[in-house]
C-alpha cells in the first residue's frame, strides 16, 4: 500500500545545503515552509487548495501507480523494479528530483516521462502503440499513475539535476534559450509571463522563475489540477504553455521539451519539491 507514511521513512538527507529540504514533511508542510520563507502571492493564492492538499486525489493515483510499478506486465512479464532512474535499478527515493539527467545506456538526457517509456519498452517489452505507453494524459492512464507514484517518492527532496555531463549542461542551456525565445502571432516567450514577481494574467498570479522558492511549486508535477479534475505531468504543462503561446504542438518527450524541463528544474535547484502538488 502506498501512503504518505512511506514518505516518512527515515531517509538520510542527501543535500544538507537547504535547510527546508526534508523528505519527512508532507507536501503541504513543504509548501508551508516555503510560504514562511518568502512573501509570495503565487504561493498563497489558493488557500482552498492548500487546505485540500492532505486529501489530494493524486494520492489515489500514486497508490495505483505503485501497484502497476511492482506488477509483472508486458510481453516480457517484468516489473519496473529493474528500471534505473539514475540512482540504480529500482531506487526511487529522490530519483525524480535529480532528473532530467544523462543516461549512458541510451546516450541521452532523459526526463521522468521519457525514462519511464524507455523502461516500459526495454524491460517490459511494450511497444509505442500499446495503450500503456501511448496514453500519456489523465489520472486513469498508466503513465500518469506511474509518474505520480515515482514523483511522490521525491517529495521534500531538493531539486538537484546533475550538471556533470556536457550533454546535461548543453540541454539546460538550450532550454534557457527556449525559455526566452519569442515567436508566434503574440510574440510570447515563457519569460513574458514568468520573469516577474506578483504579476497576474487575468486573475492567476504567475510564478517567477527567478525566485526559486516560487518556482519549485510551479514545476512540482505531477500535480492534481483542480480545474482539469485530473493529475497532470510536466510534459502536459509544457504542451499547454506552447498552445497558449500560439506556437504549435511540441512533441511529447522531444529533446526540445526535455531541454526546457532541464532549464526549469535547474532554476528550482536547492528548493524542496512538493509532490504530489495541487494546482488551480
Amino acid at each position, binding site marked *: 500500500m502506498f501512503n504518505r507514511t512511506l514518505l516518512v521513512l527515515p531517509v538520510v538527507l542527501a543535500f544538507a545545503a537547504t535547510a527546508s529540504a526534508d523528505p519527512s514533511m508532507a507536501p503541504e508542510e513543504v509548501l508551508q515552509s516555503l510560504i514562511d520563507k518568502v512573501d509570495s502571492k503565487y504561493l498563497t493564492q489558493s488557500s482552498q487548495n492548500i487546505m485540500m492538499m492532505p486529501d489530494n486525489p493524486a494520492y489515489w493515483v500514486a497508490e495505483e501507480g505503485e501497484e502497476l510499478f511492482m506488477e509483472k506486465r508486458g510481453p516480457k512479464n517484468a516489473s519496473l523494479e529493474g528500471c534505473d532512474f539514475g540512482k540504480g535499478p529500482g531506487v526511487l527515493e529522490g530519483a525524480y528530483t535529480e532528473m532530467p539527467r544523462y543516461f549512458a545506456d541510451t546516450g541521452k538526457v532523459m526526463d521522468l516521462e521519457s525514462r519511464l517509456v524507455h523502461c516500459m519498452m526495454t524491460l517490459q517489452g511494450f511497444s509505442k502503440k500499446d495503450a500503456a505507453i501511448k496514453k500519456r494524459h489523465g489520472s486513469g492512464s498508466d503513465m500518469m499513475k506511474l509518474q505520480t507514484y515515482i514523483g511522490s517518492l521525491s517529495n521534500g527532496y531538493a531539486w538537484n539535476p546533475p550538471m556533470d555531463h556536457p550533454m546535461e549542461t548543453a540541454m539546460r542551456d538550450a532550454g534557457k*534559450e527556449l525559455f526566452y525565445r519569442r*515567436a508566434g*502571432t503574440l*510574440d510570447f516567450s515563457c519569460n513574458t509571463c514568468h520573469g516577474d514577481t506578483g504579476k497576474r494574467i*487575468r486573475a492567476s498570479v504567475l510564478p517567477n522563475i527567478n525566485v526559486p522558492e516560487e518556482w519549485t511549486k510551479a514545476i512540482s508535477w505531477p500535480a492534481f489540477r483542480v480545474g482539469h479534475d485530473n493529475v497532470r505531468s510536466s510534459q502536459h504543462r509544457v504542451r499547454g504553455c506552447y498552445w497558449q503561446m500560439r506556437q504549435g504542438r511540441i*512533441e511529447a518527450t522531444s*529533446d526540445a521539451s526535455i531541454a526546457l524541463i532541464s532549464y526549469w528544474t535547474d532554476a528550482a535547484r536547492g528548493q524542496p519539491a512538493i509532490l504530489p502538488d495541487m494546482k488551480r
Partner: protein
Amino acid sequence: MIKHKNYTTPALTLVAILFATFSYTAVADSLSDSLIFEQGGFRLSQKTQEGGTVKDRLTQDGIQKVCSKLGAASVDSNTAASVTSMARESIKKPAGGIKLGDWKKGEAVARSGYGFRVGHKTDDHSKREAGGNCYACHQLDPNEIAFGTLGPSLTGYGKLRGTGEPILNYAYEVIYNPHVYFPCTHMPRFGHNNVLTGQQISDVMAYLFDSASPVNQ
C-alpha cells in the same frame, strides 16, 4: 531525432560533443533552434489559421530575434534603437485616418482570448473571431475584477487623455506595434502580426476612448 553515438572520451570538447551527439549544423544557429527545426521538437507541418504552418510561427522575425537575445536583461540603447526603427517601418495607418469604432464590439475584443491556438486543439476562426485578450494584461472596466497586471491599468484612458489627434495616433501605434514606444515590450503587435483587423483595432480604441465606454465611467 538526435543521432547519438556512444562517446567514451570525456575529454571531448563541448563543441565536438554537440556536433557528434546532436548533429546540429550551420543551418540552425543555436542548439535550441536545432531542437525545434531539425530534431523533431514540434509538429512543424501543422496548418495555422493565417494559412501558414507551425514552422512559420516558430520562425522568428527581426524584432523577435533581437529581443529574445536579451534574455532576462532589460533593453540596452543599441537594441532599443534598432527595434524602434524596425517597429516604425512596420506601421500602416488606415486609409481614411484613425477613427473610433463601436465600443461594445471593442469590449468583446478586449475580453476574448480566443484565436490562433494550434496543437492538440485548434481554434476555428470560421466559428468565432479571434480576440485581443487585453484583460489578460490590463485593467479596463473598473468593475471587472479578473484583470491581469503585466501591463499598466487603462481604466479611464480616454477620460484622462481626451480624444485629440496625437493621443489617438499614439494609441493606434501602440496597439499596431508597441515596440515603436516600448522596445522589446511584452505587449503583442496586434496590427503588425495581423492578430486584429483594422476594424477590430478601431473598435477596441473606442472601448478605450469613447465617453460612453465603461472604461471611462
